[in-house]
């Protein structure tokens, strides 16, 4: 029977981080890019909790993870409001087509 250990959690979180980063770089839809950011934040959360649990550390990791969850919600609220505003003015949320500011 395979024991689930720290390494497994770290692999999952690394995969999640890469998926989030891929979503951020490949997708052009602003909402999907924001979802990529959420994945990256949650991968860090998995790391924090796993380290805290398996290395017998203090509660620092848990506390930081809790704060990250709260901040991610706040950030999503602000970001979605901005996306909504963009949709009203530009009629699109495709990041490539919103480009009046150029070099």
């Amino acid at each position, binding site marked *: 029977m395979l024991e689930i250990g720290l390494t497994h959690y*770290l692999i999952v*979180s690394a995969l999640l*981080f890469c998926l*989030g*980063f891929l979503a*951020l770089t490949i997708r052009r839809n*602003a909402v999907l*890019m*924001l979802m*990529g*950011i959420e994945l*990256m*934040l949650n*991968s*860090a*959360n998995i*790391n*924090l909790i*796993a*380290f805290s649990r398996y*290395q017998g*550390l203090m509660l*620092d*990791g848990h*506390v*930081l993870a809790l*704060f*990250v969850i709260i*901040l991610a919600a*706040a*950030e999503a609220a*602000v*970001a979605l409001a*901005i*996306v909504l*505003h*963009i949709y009203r*003015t*530009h009629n699109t949320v495709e*990041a490539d087509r*919103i*480009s*009046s*500011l150029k*070099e």
Partner: protein
Amino acid sequence: MIEIIFDSIPSFWPEITIALTFVISMIVEFIVGRKGKASTGMTTGFVVLLGLVVTIFQLPFQDLEPRLLFGTMVAVDPFSAFFKYLILATGIIIVVFSMQSRELREQETVGEFYCFIAAMTFGMLLMTGASNLLMVYLAIELVSLSSYILAGFSKKQKRSGEAALKYVLFGGASSAVMLYGISLLYGLTGALDFSSIQAALAGGVAVHSVHSFPILILASLMILVGFGYKISAVPFHFWTPDVYEGAPITVTAYLAVASKAAGFAVMIRFFYVTFFDSFVDLGHWVSLPHIDWVMMIAILSVLTMTLGNLVAIWQDNLKRLLAYSSIAHAGYILMGVVAMSDLGLTAVMLYFLIYFFMNLGAFYVVMAIADRIGSEHIDDYRGLAKRAPLIAAGLSVFLVSLTGLPPLAGFIGKWMLFSAVIEANLIWLAIIGVVNSAISLYYYARVFRNMYLREPMDGDDSPIRFSPLVIVITILFIIPNLIFGIYFGPLVTYAQNSIELFLR
């Protein structure tokens, strides 16, 4: 536990005051904003202004003996006090500027603008003292969230919303990368506060193992991404030009001065406390072995100033030009961080003091001109010397100071930075810095040429009238640029007295 909190509160009054200002201004805006539809937001603006002034006047009464508050969360020391003065002074000036800005007065809910200025200032005050990675992350996010909203505040302008979207995507991505780095560093060292991390690293954790050493490097680089984004260092600068151009100009000025200063404060504290063997040998900081931070930050500095200056040459929009110039200045200031000495830190702080006068002045004049002629394009500055001699002279002073030519204040700042780098035996870096200053003269000179040597567009050389207030404020910014170029002793002394960091 509760005693620690009660003991900490007296030293935390400035932050508490500014947080209260945020809450009270929100309530005031809720009450005032509903009655008159044509609210100018002045009431809320004055509430925030009052809050900022009260906060800055609490600072001189603080005991600056270096120590930690709330366990290990926030440090109080002369270093953080210096940056708090700088940030609060910038905040006061930005509120005053915003009250005059026509771009903002056209908004329906301009009162909320000032509330978020207060929130952002609160975040930046926390950044200057943050000495725990939890606090670092929280403070950076507080500043970021408020600045996303502020960047998109001109709802009638399409480019403002676009700026906010780009800012939120880049900001969210880099803070997520930074958080992942923090989680790795936490796993390696088992702590979140700077001193414990330093103790763990100095004790050889993660440094000697073949497996964990690459992870340590990766984690530090990921955290560097977060700081690099805040100070807009190349290659994490992509958001800067777009956001600076699209955001209301007072927000741009705030981001360029205060947000950058707070970013440098938290970055310097993190790297100096965490990765250095804190042993100060005749004013020099010795790095923990194995990681060559000097070379890494030196390369970052060279990239930042070179790219900022080279791309600025092609810019036709004054706001965007100032954005690239502020990227270049982040590169110059990084040279002071590279020096890893007391002289380097002094140079960084002196540069920020001078940068405050020259950059805010430049942004103010650009804002005043844009309010009058409705454009920031360089072609619309043609013949400005005839149409508005005093304002044109003011802009010239600020731009020459930004270039770093004697006898203006900017020269003293650059001179200190270069001498710090030379003292640290990085002569090649100083040479690159000097070459970069020469390049920067080219694009600033384009503005002078348009103002002084060219005829106005469409032959319209009617004088542009500015209100007396604008002229007074411009002169108030010109004076320090002239005086501190010659009489800079007190500034240097003040910077020298402010370099003391809390170590452990």
